[in-house]
């Protein structure tokens, strides 16, 4: 089963959360669009990976003990050249050392920075009655303040996944609004279906949060992923 070995390792290590690189690899294994990325354990490795994934890049701290990476200065965006990657790497390690001195640091994820698009959230969770459920919403205030989201119980069809993108109140933003172009709903539906497939295949996964997913006129890319497993305490 795709993804089973990653999840097995996470459970064996007693973790509840996949590392960023593991999450991206799992999504990639299911054919979902994720940016090129690699885990760096040193400055030099970070530079090498940055060259491979292509500039601009983003650096993110990878630690089993840190849930909100930005709060500890663990994320730096928009790095255009090797010099700034080297400097950012040092800055992240220093900041995390100060703000979360007890956190174990596995490394730093070096990820190709995807272009800005309309930010959407695609997620999944397990409901006590219906088990796996997928969610769709627009990023930022739409989800956090307005709770403007749509749900489906898995498994679902392509037309149901498309219907999820039409059901939210702010759906007109996806259709093109004023100067903004219409978004590729098919690409979003594909990600929704992929997430549903992962939930149905890998029962140990408790939650998936793809936030944000950048939605474009053509295609979509997952810019950040958080995957939790039902780990033992």
């Amino acid at each position, binding site marked *: 089963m795709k993804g089973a070995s990653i999840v097995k390792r996470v459970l064996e290590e007693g973790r509840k*959360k996949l590392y960023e690189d593991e999450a991206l690899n799992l999504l990639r294994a299911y054919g979902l669009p994720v940016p090129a990325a690699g885990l760096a354990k040193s400055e030099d490795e970070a530079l090498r990976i940055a060259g491979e994934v292509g500039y601009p890049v983003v650096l993110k701290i990878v630690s089993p003990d840190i*849930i909100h990476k930005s709060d500890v200065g663990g994320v730096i965006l928009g790095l255009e050249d090797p010099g700034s990657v080297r400097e950012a790497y040092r800055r992240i390690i220093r900041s995390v050392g100060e703000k979360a001195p007890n956190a174990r640091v596995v490394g730093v994820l070096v990820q190709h920075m995807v272009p800005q698009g309309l930010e959407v*959230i695609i*997620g*999944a*969770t397990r*409901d*006590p*009655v*219906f*088990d796996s*459920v997928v*969610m769709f*919403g627009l990023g930022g205030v739409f*989800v*956090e303040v307005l*709770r403007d*989201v*749509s*749900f*489906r*119980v898995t498994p*679902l069809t392509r037309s*149901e996944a498309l219907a999820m993108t039409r059901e939210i109140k702010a759906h007109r933003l996806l259709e093109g609004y004023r100067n903004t172009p219409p978004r590729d709903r098919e690409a979003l539906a594909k990600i929704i279906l992929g997430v549903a497939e992962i939930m149905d295949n890998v029962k140990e996964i408790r*939650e*998936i*949060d793809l*936030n944000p997913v950048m939605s474009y006129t053509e295609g979509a890319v997952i810019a950040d992923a*958080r995957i*939790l497993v039902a780990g033992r305490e």
Partner: protein
Amino acid sequence: MNRSIDERVEQLRVFFKPRSIAVIGASSKPMKIGNVIVKQLKKRYSGKLYPVNPRHEEIEGLKCYPTILDVPGDVDLAVISLRADLVPGVVKQSIEKGVKGIIIVSGGFSEIGPEGARLEMQIRDMISRSEVRVIGPNGLGVLDLYTGVDTFFLPEERMKRPPKGRIALISQSGALSAAITDWAAAEGIGISRAVSYGNKIDVDDVDLLYYFAEDEETRVIAMYVEGLKPGRGKEFIEAARYVARKKPIVLLKGGKTARGAVAAASHTAALAGSYEVFRSALRQAGIIEAESIEDLFDLARALSMQPPAKGRRAAVITNAGGPAVMATDALERHGLEIPILSDETQKKLREKFPPYYVTKNPVDLTGDGSSEDYRHALETVLTSGEIDVLLVIALVQTPKLNVDVADLIVEKARRHGIPTVAMSFGGELTRKLEARLEENGIPVYETSERAVRALWSLVEYGEIKRRLGGD
């Protein structure tokens, strides 16, 4: 648990069409549960009836047996009304006797705590090792208006029984089942069969949906559900999708408030309140959601009388301005279209109408509208090919409109096959109009809002059938 649909339907038949019933815990004391059940069964149930109670020779004129094992001949259905701690023992005897179904109306099980849960577990163990099916405990059981099976242990002076009808009721709440039944009787709303399954240790929503899908007397399934059992949601959706192809399901959910804020690490978990997920599940399942008890039966009535709609275009024919305006608002809110009728259709309407009648849509015949005017409007609008559903507003306080307009509405709607509901409001004459319409399959509502909800449910069910591929 992995029974086929046919098997489930076959197994559940015993609860509605048993050839013989034993009432264990039958009593001769008036108002006692064990007495009410025997009395009620005696009234309408025509199969063999055996009271069981070791302390009596005879109950309500029927020979009484010490245990179910002493009953001569077969017993199809055992109804148990005894103290909870005595129930496992008689369940065992009933299984030994070879009954096919058991209804346990007694309370005192998992709903009261660990001691009751232990008793429930004992029963569960016994039935899992046999073919017997169980409804209950802690519910009212079954009320079948066709066969007279009646374990709703409330005396008829307290809870009237509704007339035979086409709506099946499945309810998680016993008290609510009783109240609904009594209310339906007073409103003259017909019921086919009602089930209050209580703690549902065996027979549950899924079983009953499959059964009512095949039940000839049932046209619509109305449900009151507070929650489904953990892990059973996907099976429920699958069953409902299967059933909704054949018959409409209308559901009222109790307990809608979001569960307390959960300390969740992700947006999705924090947002996935149980009601939000439940609503999506209903949509996926092809179930129409009602907003209140009144709404549940408003929609169920429409769906039991009228066919599903082929599209979303609505027309309104009225002799009253205000109700038509409110209907238009409500139609918009429910996402139905109110197309302006074509020039050709409007021209046809105007041929027989004075110039001050409005022919766009709503078609407003004003306070001058006569039955003849309704005839012309109905014929023209229903044959226009421009609409899919019709709302007829007919207030009979005006001197020109007679109650015989009911016959026109019935005849035209039937002939042209367009789903139609009516709105009327008033006193004695209105009652006559209502009765004449309802007897002939046109549901009538007292407000525009309620009539539009009913119309919407016909549109919704049409879409559900097209989506799920109905027959």
